[in-house]
């Protein structure tokens, strides 16, 4: 038993001085300016042309997927969609700094990370059309992707729950001796949940190799950041937990990439969490159920459009001679037709047979669910017209 002294080396003062807010003023790492030019004293990350283009492609693909699917929702082809627009750099820039073995636990606006990992248009579409080819078996709303092979944890809607889970997952990776960590994405709104507090504190105390990446995009649905917290963003909290922390310009793919490379190095070598706060802006509506004109001005949106991460990255790539405008046009055209093609195909695929309705609740179907399934199937046989999507198979 050590003699513990939780006062440690606390310094004394004899002055009643209350620490005011604003003690912290955490700067933001920026490598590219809003025009996509390197800041004079900034250092470019080590990034091959190949990887830079992969990032660029993932960002463009994500933007196009979003555009296409928002339209598909308006056409009534899918019930719901949620776009990453404006935040592609925060997501793709960080995903690009990971190893494929790293587990990604996302909130819901990180489809760019999946794109970067190689999720195909068909896979996106099967999930969004809840058809029988969806690995989630059509059980979740559109955009709740999950892919075990790609180490991308299935998304769940309740906010913040993945944060302590990420600490646990990372703890398990460490215990298993893996050279891999977990990255956990969430919004500045989700960071108000109790689970955020639990997750960051546990990760710090239990030395979990996890990167917490907060997309501070200024809004949680209609609630602006200033009604979400009163401190210096989310970064200032990391310090309170004793968690290494960095704030980056989330619209600058190079800054996000550099910060994440460094965070990963530290997290793995020290077996400790790192918090990244990526300052960005949700250019999109919250989701297709939302209309932002009720809570923010076009003017504000316009200002942020000027900071578009894709335009910025493109300028940098063009300047480097790694990209040409023709390449961009070709790529765009190809992706557009690929997405549309995949959409049309997925739309035609049937949903899972009714047998599936009680599967995966447990590892095997217990007696009471067997009973319930049998009764349901018999009922559907009796009323085939009332259950057109599943009656056919049972006739």
């Amino acid at each position, binding site marked *: 038993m050590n003699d513990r002294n939780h006062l440690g080396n606390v310094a004394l003062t004899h002055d009643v001085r209350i620490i005011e807010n604003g003690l912290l003023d955490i700067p933001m790492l920026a490598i590219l300016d809003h025009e996509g030019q390197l800041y004079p004293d900034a250092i470019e990350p080590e990034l091959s042309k190949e990887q830079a283009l992969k990032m660029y492609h993932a960002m463009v693909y994500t933007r196009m997927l979003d555009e296409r699917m928002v339209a598909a929702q308006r056409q009534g082809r899918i*019930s*719901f969609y949620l776009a990453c627009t404006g935040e592609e750099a925060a997501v793709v820039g960080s995903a690009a700094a990971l190893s494929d073995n790293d587990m990604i636990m996302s909130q819901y606006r990180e489809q760019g990370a999946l794109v970067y990992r190689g999720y195909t248009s068909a896979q996106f579409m099967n999930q969004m059309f*809840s*058809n029988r080819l969806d690995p989630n*078996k*059509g*059980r*979740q*709303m559109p955009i*709740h992707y999950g892919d075990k092979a790609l180490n991308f944890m299935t998304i*769940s*809607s*309740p*906010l913040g729950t993945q944060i302590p889970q990420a600490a646990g997952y990372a703890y398990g990776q460490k215990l298993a001796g893996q050279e891999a960590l977990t990255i956990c994405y969430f919004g500045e*709104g*989700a960071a*108000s*949940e*109790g*689970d955020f507090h639990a997750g960051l504190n546990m990760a710090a105390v239990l030395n979990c190799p996890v990167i917490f990446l907060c997309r501070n995009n200024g809004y*949680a*649905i*209609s*609630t602006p950041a200033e*009604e*979400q*917290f009163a401190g210096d963003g989310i970064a200032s909290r990391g310090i309170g937990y004793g968690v290494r922390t960095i704030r980056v310009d989330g619209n600058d793919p190079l800054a996000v990439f550099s910060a994440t490379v460094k965070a990963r190095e530290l997290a793995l070598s020290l077996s400790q969490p790192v918090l990244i706060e990526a300052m960005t802006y949700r250019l999109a509506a919250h989701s297709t*159920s*939302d209309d932002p004109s*009720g*809570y923010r001005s076009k003017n504000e949106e316009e200002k942020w459009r000027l900071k578009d991460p894709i335009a910025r990255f493109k300028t940098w790539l063009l300047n480097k001679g790694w990209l040409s405008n023709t390449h961009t046009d070709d790529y765009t055209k190809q992706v557009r037709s690929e997405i549309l093609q995949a959409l049309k195909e997925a739309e035609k695929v049937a*949903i*899972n047979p*009714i047998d*599936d*309705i*009680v599967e995966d*609740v447990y590892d095997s179907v217990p007696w*009471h*669910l067997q009973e*319930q399934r049998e009764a*349901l199937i018999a*009922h*559907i046989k*009796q*009323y085939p017209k*009332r*259950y057109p*999507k*599943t009656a056919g198979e049972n006739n």
Partner: protein
Amino acid sequence: MAKLNLLQAINQALITAMTTNEKVVVFGEDVGHFGGVFRATSHLQEKFGKARCFNTPLTEQGIIGFANGLAAQGSVPVAEIQFGDYIFPAFDQIVNETAKFRYRSGGQFSCGTLTIRTPYGGGIAGGHYHSQSPEAFFSHIPGLKVVVPRDPYQAKGLLLGAIRDANPVLFLEPKRLYRASVCEVPEEDYAIPLGKAEVIQQGTDITLLAWGAQVEIVQRAADMALEDGVSCEVIDLRSILPWDAQCVADSVMKTGRLLINHEAPITSGFGSEIAARIQEQCFLYLEAPVTRVCGLDTPYPLAHEKEYMPDEFKTYEALKRLLNY
């Protein structure tokens, strides 16, 4: 009298509550300027100021914790949880705090002025995180009241009843009726007392019992049965806790049969309590077992939503089985 949908009725009830009692305070995620993701709190901030209608940070446990304190202080909080599916982070504050506050202090303090509003239920292609019907969890919490309206008229009256009731109330709003259900709603202030069921159709052969959005489902089954010459008594339970067992028992002693319909999974759904109590109280009157037509014991599915639902066809079939028992 104007025709209102359920959201408008709720909005009107909130305006009435805030106008008649300046201690009423409305808050939750996005309820402020924006008026809530369903717009149930539209214009309240405009009308009553930011101090009395405001956004909270995104923390359900915080919202209810804050509301408990505010209620204990003597204000009249009406807290919104954006979806019933997201009420669980607040479960501890509700089970261990809201519901036990008065009891543990010997009546010195209480959260009696608190009302928690939340949309619940399926039928909106929401999958398992936007469709749950959590009433059974809350029916096992002594100290709490639980209320579910079936239409705009009921919604306004019951919400005013809930806000003015001297006990904490969980007010569950059937979200698939938010815009779908429309009826005449008096402009004036009226409150429907809690704890009373309503017989909405008299009948002699069987009692059909439901609450919220499922009332219309059993009503439809009753209509189908009527074509077979079956006379159904239809009851809207309205209050889940405390519930009106006497009203249900009276009906069952008359009809000899009880069918309960709810959306939540059957196992330990609130139907089980009703069945358990009624089979005991009406044992000698029952001509068939009390029967439940409910959701499956699975998370609420997306692709198979239609199949999952305890719809009128399932209800009608169960009803026939009961009559031929």
